[in-house]
């Protein structure tokens, strides 16, 4: 997402006011970033209730830690970093999560909703993909999953995403590649199905 300069200045002003203790300025920052933080936490593997709790925790930490925020980095990247660390702690406590496979994971194709063709097709496809994606992401190791989420779903640059994950860029690229390859293998039936002509009627 391209941030126009005016918006950036605006955010800078809100951060400055928040630092001075202005809670309503901070509330505006939370409003602006909460959907992305919440969405990232969900995609990193937290359930809706955990993601809600952790998102609140992220912003409370940000509020208390505003003095440590370096203005050279982007505010959103800083939030991602706090969110990533909180999610990691939460997920580590849950271990062994890998054994705890989601119910009905027999066959990705069998899990496809059988309502294809209902409603606007684009929306149906998007929802269908979202479901497949959620199941496939759940099967990736946490590190690889985080790399794909930060870089490909959240759209961070490699540099930003590596900083959020706390690893060097070379290590990040390796994780990203392995994550993408595993995700591709899991989504392959869907990707090939979508490319093939669909039966009509």
């Amino acid at each position, binding site marked *: 997402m391209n941030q126009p300069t005016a918006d950036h200045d605006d955010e800078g002003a809100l951060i400055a006011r928040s630092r001075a203790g202005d809670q309503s300025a901070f509330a505006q920052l939370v409003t602006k970033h909460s959907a992305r933080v919440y969405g990232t936490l969900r995609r990193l593997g937290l359930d809706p209730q955990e993601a809600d709790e952790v998102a609140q925790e992220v912003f409370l930490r940000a509020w*208390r830690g505003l003095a440590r925020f370096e203005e050279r980095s982007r505010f959103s990247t800083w939030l991602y970093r706090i969110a990533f660390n909180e999610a990691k702690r939460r997920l580590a406590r849950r271990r062994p999560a890998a054994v705890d496979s989601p119910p009905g994971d027999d066959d990705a194709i069998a899990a496809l909703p059988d309502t294809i063709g209902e409603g606007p097709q684009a929306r149906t496809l998007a929802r269908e993909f979202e479901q497949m994606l959620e199941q496939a992401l759940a099967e990736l190791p946490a590190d690889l999953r985080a790399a794909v989420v930060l870089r490909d779903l959240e759209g961070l640059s490699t540099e930003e995403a590596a900083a959020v994950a706390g690893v060097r860029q070379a290590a990040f*690229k390796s994780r990203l590649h392995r994550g993408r390859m595993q995700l591709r293998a899991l989504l392959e039936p869907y990707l090939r199905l979508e490319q093939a002509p669909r039966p009509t009627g």
Partner: protein
Amino acid sequence: MSPLWHELRFRRDHRWTPPHMSAYLDSDLSARGRRRVERHAADCRECRGVLDDLRHMLALLRSAPPLADVPAIAGAVLGRLNEPADR
């Protein structure tokens, strides 16, 4: 170009290409590396399929809409700003 030489090059490229697909799609390969991936993908149906899948998957991931049903986080946070930090 002898068939044997061609076969050896194909096998080398077939090992080299998959680990470099991400870098290729991120425009993070040298011009020489790019040519190598493209040459092999043109020759190898399997690698071409994987590369097409990856490209298609990345386009879907990048255009995935943000999750709906985001809870009212701002209100909840605002109500907690004065809590003591040692929770």
